[in-house]
Structure formats: structure tokens, C-alpha cells
């Protein structure tokens, strides 16, 4: 039997009346015409149509203007690899790439990004064919709880194309926007340096 992901379990529980005996409010697994999950609208009248290109695929969406790129990616397009940490630009867990550069998806409105090429952790590699940075994070044990890891990896992949000195201090400086509360920093730096040395 295929194991259910936590999110799938919650979705199914809520749809069938609630495993915890709660009302079917919140994320109820609505689907858009294209089949993607859709966040319940808070104010339908003010929704704006927008096409976002995420991981090479166009998504035609109707969004409340307040929707951040992060909430759009997680709740509307249902790509939940991108994490919400602080939601105020202080932790880096929500890091994604826009036109190849790393940005914080929590401090961007989704509507600002029509026509841009957005890449999330799901667009980097697959469980069968990991991106080299994903593989080396695994090999170096560069995480503990894993919550910050997708943001760390998105930052690390972008760092490869940025001006960065050869030593660990330069890597630490350029990774300072990604907080790891488990403190896996030593292994994160080691992982990034391994990929850089191979490059």
C-alpha cells in the first residue's frame, strides 16, 4: 500500500468530514480546471487572473492580490517543498529562483511574477535523479529536521553562479540568509564546498 504524505492524509480527512471531528473548512482540496489544488478565495470580487510559469509549466490562476509568491506556490499550486518559516524575510526557508536568481518568495506578491521563470525545489531534481546539490546534502548529512533544507539547497544552487571567494568564510557569508535552527551549518558548508570543488 502506498504511504500517504501528511498533506494528502489531512486533505482526505478533511474531505470525508474530518478525522479529528472538525468542520471541513480551510484547505478542502478544491481543484482548478487544470487540475491543480486551489486555495478557497477570501474575496472573489478582487481576484486577478495571472499566468505563472513554475518549473517549466504554465499555471493559469486567479489570485487575491495579497497572495505572496510563497502562498501561491504552496497553497494554490500545491508545491509544498518550499517552506514557510518566518514569513517576514528573516529565515530563508522560502527561497526560490526567479529567472535563475535566488529570492525570498514570502516578500514577493505572486502577481508581480507573470512572465518570469520560477523554479522551486521540485524543479531541481527528482527522487530518482537528484540535483548534485541535493545528493551532496544527503551524503554530507547537511540537515537534521530538514525544515530549512529546501531553502538551503535553493540558495546553494544559486550561489554557484554568484561571485564567491574560495574559502568557507565566503560561503558562510553568502549563506547567512538561510537560518538552520538545528545548527547543521558545518555540514551545509562542507556540502556546498564539495560541489564547488567538483565544478
Amino acid at each position, binding site marked *: 500500500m502506498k504511504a500517504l504524505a501528511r498533506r494528502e492524509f489531512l486533505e482526505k480527512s478533511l474531505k470525508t468530514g474530518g478525522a479529528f471531528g472538525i468542520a471541513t473548512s480551510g484547505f478542502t482540496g478544491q481543484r482548478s480546471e487544470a487540475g491543480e489544488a486551489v486555495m478557497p478565495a477570501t*474575496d472573489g470580487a*478582487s481576484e*486577478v487572473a495571472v499566468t505563472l510559469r513554475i518549473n517549466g509549466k504554465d499555471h493559469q490562476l486567479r489570485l*487575491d*492580490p*495579497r497572495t*505572496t509568491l510563497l502562498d501561491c506556490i504552496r497553497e494554490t499550486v500545491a508545491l509544498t517543498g518550499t517552506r514557510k518559516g518566518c*514569513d*517576514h*524575510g528573516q529565515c*530563508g526557508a522560502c*527561497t526560490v529562483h526567479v529567472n535563475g*536568481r*535566488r*529570492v*525570498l518568495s*514570502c*516578500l*514577493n*506578491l505572486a*502577481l*508581480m511574477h507573470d512572465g518570469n521563470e520560477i523554479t522551486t525545489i521540485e524543479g531541481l531534481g527528482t527522487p530518482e535523479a537528484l540535483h548534485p546539490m541535493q545528493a551532496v546534502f544527503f551524503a554530507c548529512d547537511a540537515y537534521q529536521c530538514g525544515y530549512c533544507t529546501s531553502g538551503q539547497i535553493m*540558495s546553494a544552487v*544559486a*550561489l554557484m553562479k*554568484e*561571485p564567491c571567494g574560495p574559502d568557507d568564510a565566503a560561503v*558562510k*557569508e*553568502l*549563506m*547567512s*540568509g*538561510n537560518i538552520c535552527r538545528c545548527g547543521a551549518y558545518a555540514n551545509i558548508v562542507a556540502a556546498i564546498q564539495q560541489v564547488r570543488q567538483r565544478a
Partner: protein
Amino acid sequence: MHNFEFIRPPDLATTITAAAQSKTAQQGADVRFMAGGTTLIDLMKLNVETPARVIDINRLPLDKIEATSDGGLKIGATVRNSDLAHHPTVRRDYSALSQAILDGASAQIRNMATIAGNLLQRTRCVYFRDTAMPCNKREPGTGCPAITGSNRTLAILGTSEHCIATNPSDMCVAMAALEATIHVQGPKSSRAVPFGEFHLLPGNTPQRETVLEPGDLVMHVTLPPPVAGSRQVYLKLRDRASYEFALASAAVVITVSGGKVTRARVALGGVGTKPWRSPEAEAVLTGRPANDANFRKAAEAALRDAKPQSENGFKIELAKRCLTHALRTALTS
């Protein structure tokens, strides 16, 4: 977050006309330009800013860095901080600016934040950011709890009895020392604002932070040609080595000839209610031997009028040492 109308006018004229309908261009504006979003979206989530209309200016043609005919540099309003910091001309001729930008925020935020947005960066004062607290900047007349409260990171220069909020920008400190000019297009005319006149002291109106009026759009910033033989340093002191605001910082641009300082431009960060140019320090330095004793005298002059708050008296000596060390580093660079 309060709901708003999101618009993206096709050109500059429509953009400015739309913004001119705002009652103010200052705190609480009902129409806001959005560029990088790094300050504004944060404050909108906190309900500190509640615009009814947000104008996306990211697609306007304001993203170029160009040489000017006089040998200076013209920097478009929506140039990203990282692009300016890594620009070869900036690294070569305006190294204090490059260093200041790279010392600020994180790599992700520098990729998003724009030059105009950095000019308009808002204070990190915890009372300003918390709508449950009084704050004269956010709600004029409600009081300033920072004066008797948590003020370790707040200002010691340019404060008033109504506001002691620090200007948090690093970039602005370097631009003050480099004598940048801010070019503004308004609904009726354009104007060039010298850097030192752009930001306002809090005085009795801490809600007014700049000279901008409704419809005013920062178009670009110009830097004068680099001064031949000048040496530049930006030095930032903070509670941790990266991704932290300054407790004290100094930007210095000095020219030394025959052991004497012939020209000096000095600005401080992390200590003022606005980016803090110090003509007092410049006067002490100019014409005197470039040595530690005179550097310290310049620092004493820069901090002469400093007024410590209950928790940040340490900043006075910290800022003096910061400036002295920045000058020493410039001399040997």
C-alpha cells in the same frame, strides 16, 4: 494584510498620475509604489502599511546603470542592490558603496531590493513595527515608548522627544559620503535632491521621513565622478558577523597628500535618525596630518552632539572607534 488594488501602468506618466492621487507619500500612504517588496510587503503583513492601491514599477525602464557625461554614474531606481554592488565600475570607483551594500541584508534580499527601495528603507524600531504599541511615526501624537523602553539599537544623533528611530540603511551611508544626488519626477516637474536633503529629521513630524510628495517617483541616483587618488572604506559593526543591522558603521572617502588629508567625506550609520553625514569630522580632518590622533579628534567631533538613550550609551564610543578604525583602514588600503 488589508486588501488592495494591484496595478501595473504601462508607462511613467500613468504611473505618476496614479500615485499623485495619494493623500501622502509618507507613512500610511494610500497609494504605494512596489519594487522589490522587501520592506513594503513585510510592513503590509504587519498592517503598519495599508495601501488601498499598489503600483508595480518593476517593468518600468528604470533598471540601467550608465556612465554620465561628466564621468560619474547614473543608477536607475529599480536596479537591484546585488547588481549595483557587483557592477565593475562601482567595485573600482565607488568601493565603499559596493562594500556597504554587500554588508547589508542577505544574498536573496539583495537580489530583490532596489536602489530606490533602499533609499526609502524603514526603521526596524520594534514599536514602529508593532501596531499594538504607540508610535509617533506610525500614529502621530500617540507617544514614543522607545524613549523609556527597548532602545539598545536606536539612534543617538538627530533624535527628538517624539522619535528616536534609527535609519537602518547601509547603502545610504555610503551614498551620503559619496555625495550622491537623487533625481525625482513629480506630477508637474522633475528635481534633483542632494543626498543630505532627501531624508528629514524626525523633529515634531516623525511620520515625514523624506521630501517626497504624492506622485513623486525616484527615477535614478547619480554619483559624481570619483575623486582621483581618494581612498574609500565602509566599516560596519554589528551583533553578529552577517545578516544584521549596524550598531554603528562608517563610510569614509579621503584623499591624502604629503601625509596630510586634503579632502574628507564622512558619514555614519546605525546611530542616526537619518544617514548621518558629519561635516564636523570632515572639518577636523581636512588640512591636518593623517594620523590616529587626528582620526580620534574627528570621531570626537562627529559624536559631540550625540544623546544616549537608556540602553544605547555604548554606541557613542562604538561609533567613535568605528570611524577611527575606518579612517585608519582607508589610510593603509
